């Protein structure tokens, strides 16, 4: 698929932003500035980037506990994200959601979700809205989930629903080989998870999830299908998380060094850089200027978050309902 220069710049900016956001966020977590558990997605930059490259704010994505990359690719503000992780009033959810619940409905981001598999039908619902309103051509639903989540029944229900109703959905399975410490070869009864798509009457495509160009191409077809009213597609993106399952997890306990090396050699950013510079699509200077601006953005984001106020205690009692006639306060 042809990619414009602007798009290439956007792709690099987005992947680099994800990479550096995760590294920065981890640093902050280790400094004790995050208020809870964080699940870094560095290494997995290509899938959200290559897919969201085809989306606008009117398209919707559902996400997971490992959701920062999806948020960034969907255009969320890293300042508000960092502030959310630090539990600040200026955070994306006012400090009430945290790392596992970042959402921005104005950007078509239905929220990170900490129940594995639970966000999958939400994207189907968003696609249902699009079909209902006759705007499939401008609003598709993308559900991001992992290899581990593929064992949840709700995925299969969602695939069946999307297929019989011909909804504009992309099932984007980021297979990073592990669910916590459990390898996919243990928990998944198929060589390729994408092979299950067949039984649900939709195309299933195995994609090199370390190569953003491959992801871009496969997603482009899937999104085009969806926009054309041809129904759902299943993409399995073979990828790898560079860090542990969560900030304090040491993946060396359950992954081998040669495997880690194998994926690092195929690093999505490095290989993108090589390709665009060797093919003279973007200059090394341009890439550097993108990196520089992101470095500054990260410094600013941390600064913004750290200097932001904590929410007032009253926030505890708001937003449970739009309106409710009983007090929400606990019995004290």
């Amino acid at each position, binding site marked *: 698929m042809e990619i414009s220069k602007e798009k290439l710049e956007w792709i690099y900016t987005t992947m680099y932003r994800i990479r550096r956001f995760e590294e920065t966020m981890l640093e902050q977590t280790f400094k004790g500035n995050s208020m809870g558990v964080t699940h870094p997605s560095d290494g997995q930059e290509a899938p959200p980037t290559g897919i969201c490259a085809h989306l606008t704010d009117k398209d*919707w994505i*559902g996400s997971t506990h490992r959701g920062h990359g999806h948020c960034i690719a969907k255009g969320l503000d890293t300042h508000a994200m960092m502030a959310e992780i630090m539990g600040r009033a200026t*955070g*994306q*959810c*006012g*400090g*009430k*959601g945290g790392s596992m*619940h970042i*959402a*921005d*409905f*104005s950007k078509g981001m*239905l*929220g990170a*979700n900490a*129940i594995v598999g*639970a*966000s*999958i*039908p*939400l*994207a*189907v*619902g*968003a*696609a*249902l*809205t*699009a*079909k*209902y*309103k006759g705007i499939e051509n401008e609003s598709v*639903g993308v559900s991001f989930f992992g290899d581990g989540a593929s064992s949840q*029944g*709700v995925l299969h*229900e*969602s695939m*069946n*629903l999307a297929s*019989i*109703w011909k909804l504009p959905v992309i099932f984007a399975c980021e297979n990073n080989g592990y669910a916590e410490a459990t390898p996919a070869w243990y928990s998944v009864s198929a060589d390729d998870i994408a092979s299950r798509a067949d039984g649900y009457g939709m195309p299933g495509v195995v994609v090199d999830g370390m190569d953003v160009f491959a992801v871009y191409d496969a997603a482009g077809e899937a999104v085009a299908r969806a926009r054309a009213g041809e129904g759902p597609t299943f993409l399995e993106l073979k990828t790898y998380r560079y860090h542990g399952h969560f900030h304090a997890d040491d993946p060396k306990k359950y992954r081998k060094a040669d495997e880690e090396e194998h994926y690092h050699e195929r690093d999505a950013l490095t290989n993108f850089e090589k390709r665009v510079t060797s093919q003279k699509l973007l200059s090394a200077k341009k890439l550097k200027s993108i990196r520089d601006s992101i470095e500054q953005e990260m410094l600013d984001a941390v600064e913004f978050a750290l200097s932001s106020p904590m929410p007032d205690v009253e926030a505890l009692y*708001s*937003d*449970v*309902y*739009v*309106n*409710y*006639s*009983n007090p*929400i306060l606990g*019995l004290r």
Partner: protein
Amino acid sequence: MTTHNKINPLGPGYEGVTGKDLRFRDVFRDTLRAEMNRDQDVFLMGEDISGGFDRDTKEPLDAWGGPFAATKGLVQEFGPERIRDAPISEAGFVGAAVGAALTGLRPVVDLMYFDFVTVAYDQLLSNAAKSRYMFGGQTRVPMTLFARSGAGTGHAAQHSESFYSMLAHIPGLKVVVPSDPYSVKGLLAAAIRDDDPVFLVNDKKLINLTGFVPDEDYVIELGKGRYMQRGDDVTLVGMSYTSIVCEQAAAQLADAGIKADVIDMMSLSPFDEDILLESVQKTNNVVIVDEDTPRASMASEFAAVIADKAFDYLDAPVKRVTGPHSPVPYNKGLENAFMPQPEDVVGTVRNMLGRD
């Protein structure tokens, strides 16, 4: 057309309104129709609600009119996009409804039997009820779910539950329990128009009952109870079908010279604390009647609120009359023994007032 002259059951403002005696099931369907006409974003989803499809034309057949005929005729009127027949995938389609609600529609989900909510429990609790809060108030989940609860029809353990207390426990979710044609019209309309997720629990024993329904369009404010009748000696608190049980008990008590306030809670979350306290402050005696099993139930909740906030007015222990802590049995005799009967309520009141 008749004119309603009992004041209380319809609440203030309904003196002398015109209306008709209608069947619960018909009112339910007519209200769905009215709300779908009112708002193009309202659509219905559930198993068998378009009742099969013609093999050759692919047209919906409306063979059953949906579970309990709740949607009879609607698919012809609104088409299969708005009366969306779903496979047996409760978690999937409740989740899809949440997604649709988050993106601008107002889904109404027919879960058929109340018992099936357990299959979709996570979508309801973790997504529908929490999205607004955990995302810091940036969104809303305007969806309605309904399903049929209750014993009494020989459906046995897995089709007869009344565990609405578990739903009322969930922050972020609202729960309403109509008890007659009047209340189902007002509560269903209010639920569909509400911007929060609302679960309407519909006891099967109500479906074929007839009652007075005003002609006009109206909603019943969520969280409000009502008096079904007034009396000074004891407060009987009912919800869903047990409001009728309370009325029957009150009639028997009246024969013995005992006058009861009968309260129909109508909403369980939010619920009407004021009406409970007002009545108990007057009668000083209360019996809460609930078909749900007793432990950590709404009966417990009302008892706890009264024991806290009307403590000084109580002349006697707060009593609950509930189903046993057991699943629902199949055999009719056992099933009748499972459900609170008017006689159980009468016995409890007589004991309480020392009028054996």
